[in-house]
């Protein structure tokens, strides 16, 4: 419990006019340990600690709460701020508007494509899903099955993601559907050929929204992979998955820090209903443990 830790840590602050530099630096050393254990990447943790140190040093000690509680409040508020403002909506352009889902292998893109399609339909949209993964065995089948469960149409079967998108675009226009969610194959960000395929797809599709899907239990590598994806592509938003487990979710801070893009949703289970809008304060509490 963070407050208890800090109570012990900063007990001697009582009665002083200002949070002293020594006190703050001791405290943030403890915060750094907590963040690293919560899987926040080193660069993101450093940046956050610097911001908290600056903020804390500028503060007068409040008399209504203990210095420990005050320090916790600074940290918690700053983390919630870092993680981003209130949930940003999905971006749409002219119908049928494409949404691209990208990310490393196995993070949850296909499942999230279906979850997002359901979410958008509940919001009054008419989604189509495009099975843009032509590589993984039974990837199209997986999306098709999810589509059938939801009663949402799926296009598949062409030899390349671009061809599948074209087919989907035609279908959506004919059927009066207003958005196309494009699932893509998982890939490693250091695989030049696969990253090139993705940037060609994005250049062709020109989606107003490209979502980087990130596994919520990712550790230190989160900064590297997110940075690589956002260097090669125009990423407009982030989705953190598998947060129904007991992972602390520090990767959220890492990817937010390195891309500067908003976290739009979190995945909280394997069912298509298990998608939630992002609440920075809740995730801040989870990361701080």
């Amino acid at each position, binding site marked *: 419990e963070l407050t208890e830790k800090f109570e012990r840590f900063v007990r001697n602050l009582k009665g002083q006019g200002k949070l002293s530099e020594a006190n703050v630096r001791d405290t943030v050393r403890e915060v750094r*340990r907590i963040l*690293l*254990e*919560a*899987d926040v*990447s*080193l660069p993101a943790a450093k940046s956050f600690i610097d911001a908290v140190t600056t903020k804390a040093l500028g503060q007068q000690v409040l008399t209504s709460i203990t210095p420990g509680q005050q320090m916790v409040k600074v940290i918690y508020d700053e983390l919630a701020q870092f993680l981003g403002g209130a949930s940003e909506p999905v971006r749409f352009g002219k119908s049928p508007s494409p949404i691209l889902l990208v990310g*490393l*292998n*196995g*993070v*949850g893109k296909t499942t999230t494509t279906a979850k997002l399609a359901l979410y958008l339909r509940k919001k009054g949209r008419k989604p189509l899903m495009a099975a843009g993964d032509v*590589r*993984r*065995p*039974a*990837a199209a*089948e*997986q999306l*098709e*099955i*999810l589509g059938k*469960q939801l009663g949402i149409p799926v296009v598949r079967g062409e030899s390349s993601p671009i061809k599948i998108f074209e087919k989907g675009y035609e279908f959506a226009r004919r059927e009066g559907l207003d958005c196309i969610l494009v699932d893509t194959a998982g890939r*490693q*960000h*250091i*695989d030049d050929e696969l990253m090139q395929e993705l940037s060609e797809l994005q250049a062709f599709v020109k989606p107003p929204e490209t979502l980087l899907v990130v*596994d919520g*239990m*990712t*550790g*230190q*590598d*989160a900064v*590297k*992979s997110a940075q690589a994806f956002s260097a090669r592509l125009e990423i407009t938003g982030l989705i953190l998955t*598998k947060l*129904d*487990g*007991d*992972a*602390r979710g*520090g*990767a959220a801070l890492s990817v937010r820090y390195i891309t500067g893009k908003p976290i739009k949703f979190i995945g909280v289970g*394997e069912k298509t209903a298990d998608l939630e809008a992002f609440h920075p304060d809740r995730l801040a509490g989870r990361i701080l443990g």
Partner: protein
Amino acid sequence: LLGLSRWDAAEYEQLEEILISADIGYDTTQQLLKTLMETAGANEIGANLSPGERLRLELNRLLDGDGASPHRFSAAPWVILLVGVNGSGKTTTVGKLAYYFFQQGKRSAVAAADTFRAAAIEQLEVWAGRGRARVIRQAQGADPAAVVFDAYNSVKARGEDVLIVDTAGRLQAKQNLMEELAKIRRVLNRLDASAPHEALLVLDATTGQNGLSQAAGFLRSASITGLIVTKLDGTARGGIVVPIRRQLELPIAFIGLGEAVDDLQPFDAKVYVDALLA
């Protein structure tokens, strides 16, 4: 402290950063560096090596061993259970394992015990084909333990050397799913008291500190005997295996290095440690 003069703050910080950024974890990193500092002048062998070189030796010592899987094939069939969290690479690894054994002259059969996820069985059928393995399956939604029971008896009858069991991804925090795994294990125990002969946690190399919680959880529910670390063809270095080895004594059996059927290699501590410290 003896040897402290050989360490300066910059050197300590540099090593700390390498270890933490490899997902070795804050606590384990501090313990490792403390061990190094305390033994700095203590032995002849270490005396002329830099802290970085001694760290390499220590990590090799920690991770080495005969690996989780001396595939003894001392039972027929030899049963390997693959478990792990969602998306870690289990189904793909089933195919790679079957292919690995095929190249050693051993035929595999595969039990499609993920009866839950969309198209899991279809995906497995493709991978089993690549590994020259027969698939034993039932309908979508069937009881996974029943599939395993079926598969074992089928392999017993048909004579394949290895039975590899693919299971559904599951988070260790989910009690009911952990219980399902324990049931699969009990079914195997009853068919052959020594089965499963290997139970391997398939762990994504990008996993952070939650990997330790995964190993502990799957140790309880499935009595895992070792790890397979996948996706090491990326930039993640899979350092979480260090605290897992230290605290739970679980060795690494194989590493996954890509999406092709031959992208599986037996664990080599030297190669792994060199990559950790790169």
